[in-house]
């Protein structure tokens, strides 16, 4: 009896679940075929050949982009038979650097590591890295450095020398729905827009039904430290002294400044007007989805996500046409934005041969052809400019004109300390402080933007001072 009851309840729940699946309205069936995302599938590692020197490579870029990392490493291993690069995924950039810190005591360190720009200072502070500049100088390859994308090169030039080899670099953009822009009588080709213009667009793009309820918001927002940094860079305002940490160890954060406040108030005013929808902390995915589904007409995102957004818009099938424009700014401000991403660090952990192997891989990875392969398969910038001459990159730029806007954006102005990098040992927690401030202000928990940023900067500085006191030099 009891058994029967159990069976019946199980069967009934199953039926109900199935019914729920069926009951969901089947809209836009014609577009349901998934568009392939920017990826290569199956990537089994090639095997090490006898006699090859093993180079341990820790990397933190996972998912579909991680597949391209493996594919690139495979290409290298197939291209020569002196070295074997053995890639080991370390879960995330953050965990990669945490493992390196733990490995300092035990001696378990990789020969080559991919670490995000937020970890640059911590990598230098390990005392176990060999600046790649040393190898470039020794082999007389300054020409390669000179050909690097200036914004990218500057991001990893700390204390006057190139510390690590840039590998994957991207920047933040304002993504727009070109179709909605045209329908609202706006110009989707105007890439340089002011805060006030964006607010105006958001009003024009917001759609309300007969009873006044918003059916489409002008812009989708979420708190993100990276965008906050981009805005500082675009206005050439440093976030910390001295020189954003580029010429010497960062001693103090100063980001509770007028541009920081203006950025927060810019977002808040649109939320208050009802022309923006706020997705909250960690709302990036939701904001992207809403944009591709036509529920908003603008959102901020990384250029590396361009193809995924295009694929998503095609799948949603509501006519969203993905376009990109520069990060908005004050009037008469044409500053470049900053790049984010990761770079390759050589350590002194292994044998001289392993170090040479790591360097050989970097040299190879910086050739125009490899960069073209890498960039066209991921959505990151090619690190060396010669790469744009290759057929693959030319084709990619024709297929994705939105990417050209991103290239233009990092070339908008000359390199300055205030617009190339933020280097500190507590970068990750600083970003978190900024997110907390933005969220506190946008949700109304903290009454003014100034107050929110004052609290954040105090927290950031407390931790920064503590970190600085724990490292020597």
């Amino acid at each position: 009896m009891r058994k029967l009851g159990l069976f019946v309840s199980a069967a009934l729940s199953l039926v109900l679940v199935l019914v729920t699946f069926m009951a969901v309205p089947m809209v836009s069936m014609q577009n349901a075929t998934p568009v392939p995302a920017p990826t290569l599938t199956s990537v089994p590692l090639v095997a090490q050949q006898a006699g090859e020197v093993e180079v341990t490579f820790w990397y933190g870029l996972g998912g579909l982009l991680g597949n391209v990392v493996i594919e690139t490493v495979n290409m290298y291993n197939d291209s020569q038979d002196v070295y074997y690069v053995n890639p080991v995924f370390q879960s995330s950039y953050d965990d990669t650097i945490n493992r390196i810190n733990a490995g300092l005591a035990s001696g378990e360190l990789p020969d080559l590591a991919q670490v995000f720009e937020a970890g640059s200072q911590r990598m230098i502070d390990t005392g176990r890295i060999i600046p790649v500049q040393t190898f470039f100088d020794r082999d007389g390859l300054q020409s390669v450095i000179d050909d690097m994308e200036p914004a990218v090169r500057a991001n990893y030039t700390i204390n006057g020398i190139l510390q690590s080899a840039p590998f994957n670099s991207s920047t933040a953009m304002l993504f727009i729905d070109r179709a909605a822009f045209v329908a609202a009588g706006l110009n989707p080709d105007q890439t340089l827009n002011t805060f006030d213009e964006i607010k105006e667009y958001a009003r024009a793009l917001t759609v309300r039904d007969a009873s006044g309820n918003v059916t489409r918001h002008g812009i989708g927002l979420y708190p993100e430290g990276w965008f906050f940094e981009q805005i500082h860079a675009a206005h050439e305002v440093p976030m910390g002294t001295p020189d954003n940490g580029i010429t010497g160890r960062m001693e103090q954060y100063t980001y509770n400044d007028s541009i920081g406040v203006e950025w927060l108030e810019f977002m808040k005013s649109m939320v208050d007007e009802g022309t923006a929808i706020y997705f909250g902390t960690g709302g990036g995915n939701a904001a992207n989805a809403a944009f591709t589904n036509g529920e908003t007409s603008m959102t901020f995102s990384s250029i590396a996500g361009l193809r995924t957004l295009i694929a998503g818009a095609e799948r949603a099938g509501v006519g969203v046409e993905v376009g990109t424009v520069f990060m908005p700014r004050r009037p008469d401000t044409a500053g470049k934005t900053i790049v984010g991403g990761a770079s390759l660090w050589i350590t002194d952990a292994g044998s001289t041969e392993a170090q040479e192997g790591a360097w050989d891989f970097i040299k190879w990875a910086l050739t125009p052809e490899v960069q073209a392969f890498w960039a066209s398969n991921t959505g990151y910038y090619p690190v060396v400019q010669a790469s744009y001459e290759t057929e693959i990159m030319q084709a990619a730029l024709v297929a994705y004109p939105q990417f050209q806007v991103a290239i233009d954006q990092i070339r908008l102005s000359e390199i300055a300390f205030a617009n190339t990098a933020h280097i500190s040992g507590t970068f990750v927690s600083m970003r978190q402080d900024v997110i907390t401030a933005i969220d506190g202000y946008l949700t109304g928990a903290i009454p003014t933007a100034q107050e929110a940023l004052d609290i954040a900067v105090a927290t950031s500085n407390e931790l920064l001072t503590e970190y600085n006191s724990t490292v020597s030099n």
Partner: protein
Amino acid sequence: MSVLSHSRRGPARVRYNIIIYALLILASIILGFPLIFALSLALQGPVPNPSLLPRDLTQLDWGVFLQVFEQQPQIIRWIFNSFVVASGVTLGVLFTSSLMAYALSYLKFPGKTLLLFFALGSLMVPFEATLIPNYLLVARLRWSDSFQGLILPFVASGFGVFLLRQYFLTLPRDLYDAALVDGCTRLRYLWSILLPLSRPALATLAVYTFLTTWNQFYWPLLVTNSTEWRTTQVGITVFRNFEFAVFNIQMAATLIVMLPTLLLLILGQRQLVSGLTAGALKG
């Protein structure tokens, strides 16, 4: 429930059953939702904007599960690793905890209280505090990339000792005295009488230990240097996308690594439940 339903007849009983089943179905949907949602996301293809449930059931992308294995054939090895490690730790904890709890609850010896306090004291030291010393020890023993490095640091548990000691103390001591009078050795008493009687406590400890070990993340990340020695929780992070969110393969991989534990739970549920309730009734 059976008592209640026998006392009712006709329409009243039908109505009663309808309510019960409605509640059961509701509960199972709530409990099953994370799994259904994961399955739904997995089957919708590589898109940034999946819907709550698939919009078109004829377009489900079942190949995603194959893709997981294509992309990381090592996932089978990771599941195997996790199983060996979680089972090893569970057996080790049951073994060491029952022996020590036995000594602490039945034997008289000098320093007993002190020993109990040591066991309890180990509960107060957070794992994070011992992480680096443990890691350095394991690294110096050259136990990186090995089962002993993953298992041995966890085979003794202050929590296990405390839990079993408390349970052993609830069993009548007369049983112990009678057994000894009848010529039973102390070890035999532990094996043949005490442990069978303590099934509910042992089952609780086993399930708890197995799951916490299965879910370990940071320790396996630290003490494994090669891809084939990863455990599932570390391994599946390779499916997480950066810069943009596409969930399908990640969710498919999550479902795949959940399956073995789910099967274990479903198959072992009867014993677990009967063990727990048997103890509850006998008190």
